[in-house]
C-alpha cells in the first residue's frame, strides 16, 4: 500500500499521518503538495490530514476545496480511489461535496483534545473491515469545529444506507446522532473527526487507529 498524504499550507498532522503509515503500519507514503493537479498513479489511498488548511479563517476547509489537488482528489474518488479525511480532512471532504453535511463549532464552543471511545457502526467499508461491528475503539480527538450537522433526511439516508462508520460513545461536541465518521455512497471515501494516526503506537496510549489502516491493507489485497 502506498498512501498519498496531502500537504496544504497549514496542515499540521501531515507528518504524523506519514509517520504512522510508514513506521507503524509498515506501508509506503508520499507527501502530495496542494498545488499539484494529479494524483500519482502509484498512490492507493489519499489521506487529507488534520490541521488548519489555509488558516481555516473563512470556514474550515472552505478555501482548501478550491486548491488544485482537491480537483485531482475528486477525480481519484470518482474513479473508485480510496480517500480518507481526518479532522480538517473530514471538514474539507464535506466542503468539497465528497461527503454530505458540515462540521460546525463544538457545542461547548471550545477546542477539545482527549481520547474518545468510538463505536464501529459498520464493517462494510474498506476502512473498517478489520474491526468488529460494535467494537469500541479508543482514538483521540483534537478539534474546535467537529460538531457534525446535516439535514434530517440526509442523516436518515446515511443511516439507511449503513454509511455512519463511527459513533461517539460519549458525544464530545454535539454531533447530530453522535456521528464521528461517515462514508460516501460508493463507500470509498471516509471522513472522521478523530485522529486514527495518533493511535498507532502503544507509546501513544492506544493502537486502535491501526484497525483503520489494517482494513485498508486487506481491502487493497482484495481489490
Amino acid at each position, binding site marked *: 500500500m502506498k498512501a498519498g498524504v496531502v500537504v496544504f*499550507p*497549514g496542515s*499540521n*498532522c501531515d*507528518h*504524523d499521518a506519514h*509517520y*504512522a503509515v510508514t513506521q507503524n503500519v509498515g506501508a509506503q507514503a508520499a507527501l502530495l503538495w496542494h498545488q499539484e493537479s494529479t494524483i500519482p498513479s502509484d498512490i492507493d489511498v489519499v489521506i487529507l490530514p*488534520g*490541521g*488548519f488548511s*489555509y*488558516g*481555516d*479563517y473563512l470556514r474550515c476547509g472552505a478555501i482548501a476545496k478550491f486548491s488544485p489537488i482537491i480537483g485531482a482528489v475528486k477525480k481519484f474518488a470518482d474513479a473508485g480511489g480510496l480517500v480518507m479525511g481526518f479532522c480538517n480532512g473530514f471538514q474539507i471532504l464535506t466542503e468539497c461535496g465528497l461527503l454530505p453535511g458540515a462540521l460546525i463549532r463544538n457545542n461547548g464552543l*471550545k*477546542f*477539545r*483534545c*482527549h481520547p474518545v471511545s468510538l463505536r464501529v457502526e459498520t464493517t462494510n467499508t474498506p476502512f473498517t473491515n478489520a474491526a468488529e461491528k460494535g467494537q469500541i475503539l479508543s482514538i*483521540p480527538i*483534537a478539534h*474546535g469545529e467537529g460538531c457534525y450537522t446535516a439535514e434530517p433526511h440526509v442523516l436518515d439516508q446515511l443511516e439507511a444506507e449503513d454509511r455512519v462508520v463511527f459513533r461517539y460513545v460519549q458525544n464530545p461536541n454535539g454531533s447530530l446522532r453522535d456521528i464521528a465518521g461517515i462514508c460516501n455512497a460508493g463507500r470509498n471515501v471516509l471522513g472522521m473527526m478523530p*485522529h486514527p*494516526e*495518533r493511535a*498507532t*503506537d*502503544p*507509546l*501513544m496510549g492506544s493502537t486502535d487507529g491501526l484497525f483503520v489502516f489494517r482494513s485498508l491493507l486487506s481491502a487493497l489485497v482484495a481489490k
Partner: protein
Amino acid sequence: MSTITPEVVAAHSLTPDEYQKILSLLGREPSLTELGIFSVMWSEHCSYKSSKVHLKKLPTRSQLVLLGPGENAGIIDIGKGYGIAFKIESHNHPSFIEPFQGAATGVGGILRDIFTMGARPIAVLDSIRFGPLDDPQTGARNRRILEGVVSGIAHYGNCFGVPTVGGECVFHKSYDGNPLVNVFALGVIPKDKIFFGRAEGIGNPVIYVGAKTGRDGIHGATMASDEFTEESKQKRPNVQMGDPFLEKLLLEACLEAMYTGAVVGIQDMGAAGLTCSTCEMGSRAGTGVEIDLKYVPQRETGMSPYEIMLSESQERMLLVAEKGREQEIFDVFNKWGLDSATIGFVTDDGMLRVRDHGVLVAEINNRDLADEAPIYNRPHTKPHRNVPMEAPAFASADLKADLIQLLTSGDLCSKKWIYEQYDSMVRTNTLSGPGGDAAIVRVKETGTSVAISLDGNGRYCYLDPREGAKLVVAEACRNVSTVGALPVAATNNLNFGNPQRPEIMAQLVEAIEGMADACLHFETPITGGNVSLYNETLGEGILPTPVMGIVGLMPTQAPVPSRFQNEDRTVMLLGGIGNTDEVHFGGTQYAHVLLKQMWGLPPALDMAFEKNVHAAIRELVGAGLVESAHDLSDGGFAVALAEASFDGIGATVTLPGSSLRPELLLFHEGPSRILVSTNSPEEVSKLADKHGVPAVIIGTTVKGQVVIEGYLRAAVEELHQPWATALESALHA
C-alpha cells in the same frame, strides 16, 4: 529649536542620564527615529540593564551545553547528532492589556526563538498566574483574563501544530492586576545545522521575510518595562496581533530555506522588531547593517521610519544570505506564499544605517545599541516582606474537610478544563501530557525522550527569595526525576516587581543567587531565559516569582503513571515523612487556602539529600520497580495521596510515629519526598538504601478508599469529584 525635549525623552522611558549617554555616544543630538531606536534597545526588556550584573552569577555550562545564553535559545546535546533548543519567555504585560492576543503572541514569539536556531518545535508548556477567581472585586476580571489567556494559547499553539504538553496555573491576590504568562518551547535540531543571529559576510544581502509590517506593537518592549497605571488600558494598540497560520508557513519556509545552504544568519523580529534584529545581528558579527525602509513590505500606507523601525508586527524574520544566492531564498518563500525582499546589505563599519528612499534617517553604532546600554547595579537592601515570623494559633476542626478544601482550591484543583483546550498530542511524540508530574515527549530522530517541568512558587520566594528559589529548582528537578529522567539543563523566567525599589531588587538578587546555588548543585546549567520586571500595578508588586523550566533526558519507554494502578500493592514514601515546624509551615497551601495567611519561612531544603532522592527514584523507575510515582509538593502528603488515588485505586496507610501535630503531618510541604506503589518493596528499600534514602512502607493500595489511619478516611469519589469540577465551577460562578 530641538525636537528632542526632556518631555520627549521621558516619554520614551529614558532617564536624563541615559539621554546624556546617548548624546556622548552619538556626539550629536539624535533624530526622533534614533531616539526611538535607542529607547527600545535600552529598555529593560531588551537590555537586561537591572539584572545583567546578577545574571552573570548563574551557571551556564556543562559538557552537554552546546549553546548558552546570548542567542535566541540555548541548546543542549542529546546525542546521535541532535540537540534540543529551548527557552522560556514572558508575555505578562500584553496579556493583562489584551489577554487573548497577549498570550497568543507570547506563544508565537517563543516559537520563533526556537525555529530561528534551525530547530523544529515539538513541545510548549505554559506557566500562568492570575488573581483569585472568586475575589468579590476583581474575580470577574480575573476569570475573563484567564479565559482569554487560555484561548490565546490554544488558538496559537493548536493552529501552529505544536503540542502544549504541560505547565502550571496558579492564583494569588498579587497577580490581580498583573497576570503572569510565561511560555516555554522546545525544539529538535541537528547539531551540524545550528543557525545564529549573525550578520556575517561584508556585502551579503539582508533579507526580510514573513508578514508585512504594520503599526501594531509599537513600543511593546518599552511598555513591558513600565509599571501599570490606570492609563495602561489605553495601551491596547501596543499589543501585537498574532497569526499562527502565517507562523506555521514561516516555520516551514525558514527550515526549508536553511536547508538550501544559502542562509548565513537569521533572527526573528520579536521585541523591538526590525531595530533589534538588525543591530543585534550586526553587533554579534562585529559588522554593520545598512537598510532602506522603502523595501520593507508594509501593510499600511504612510508609515514613518520611526514606526517601521519600532513596529512589533508578528511573524517576521530577518536573514542574511550568501550573496548571489538570494533567488534560492525567494523561491522557498514564494512556494509558501510569503513575502521576502532584500532590504539592505552587510557593511564593514559596524554601523546601523537606516535610509528611507535613500535619505539617511538613522546612523548608530550597532554595539552602542546592543551592548552599550547602561548597566545598573541597583541598590538592594533586605527583601521586601510584610508578614510575621511566628505562626498564628490554628487548629483543624476536620482534616477531611480541610483536604477537600485544598483539593478544590485554585492551585490544586484539576486543570483539565484548561488543558483539554490545547492540542497536547499533535506530532505524535507526547508520551505523558498535561496533568502528570512532568511532561514527556519523545524525540523520533534519536529514539530517546525529553522530560520537562515548569515550576514556580511565589509564596516561598516571598518568605525567603534565596531559599524559595532553591526549592523551586529542587521541585522542578524532582518532577523530572520522578518520571525517570536525568535533569540536565534549565531555563528561567524571573518575574519581579520594580527593581528601582531596593527591597524588590533584593528579592531579585537573592532569588538569582539561590537559583545559582541550586542549579550548580543539581547540575542544571541555565542556557537562557527571560527577565520580566516592573510587574506592579498602582505600586503593588507581585510576589517574587522566578519560574524554572527544567529539561531532563531519558530513554523512550512507557511512562510510569503518577496514580496507583493496582490493588494490593505496597505504598511507600521515598524520602520519609520528613520533619518540619510551625515556622516552616507558613508558606504552605494549608496556610494559604485554609488560614488565608502567610508567615514564617518556606520549607527547609537539604540539597544533598534531595539529590539523592532524585537519583533513587530515577533508578527505581528505570529498573521498573515502581508501578506509580508521584512527588509530594503543594498540599503535602495528604494531597499527593489523594491525587494518586484518582484512577479509582486508593490506599490505606499508617504514618510512622511522629511528634508533628496532625495539620503539619498531613499537609507540610517539606521537599525530597515521593509517593510510590510497588510489588517489590524489599528491592525498592534496598535500592533506596544504596542512595542513602529511606523508603518507608506506609500501607497498601485498596479500591475506592483513601484512609490515613487515625486522621481521615474518605471514598475516592468524595475527593475526586470536587477536585475535578472546581475550576469549571469557579469560572462559571
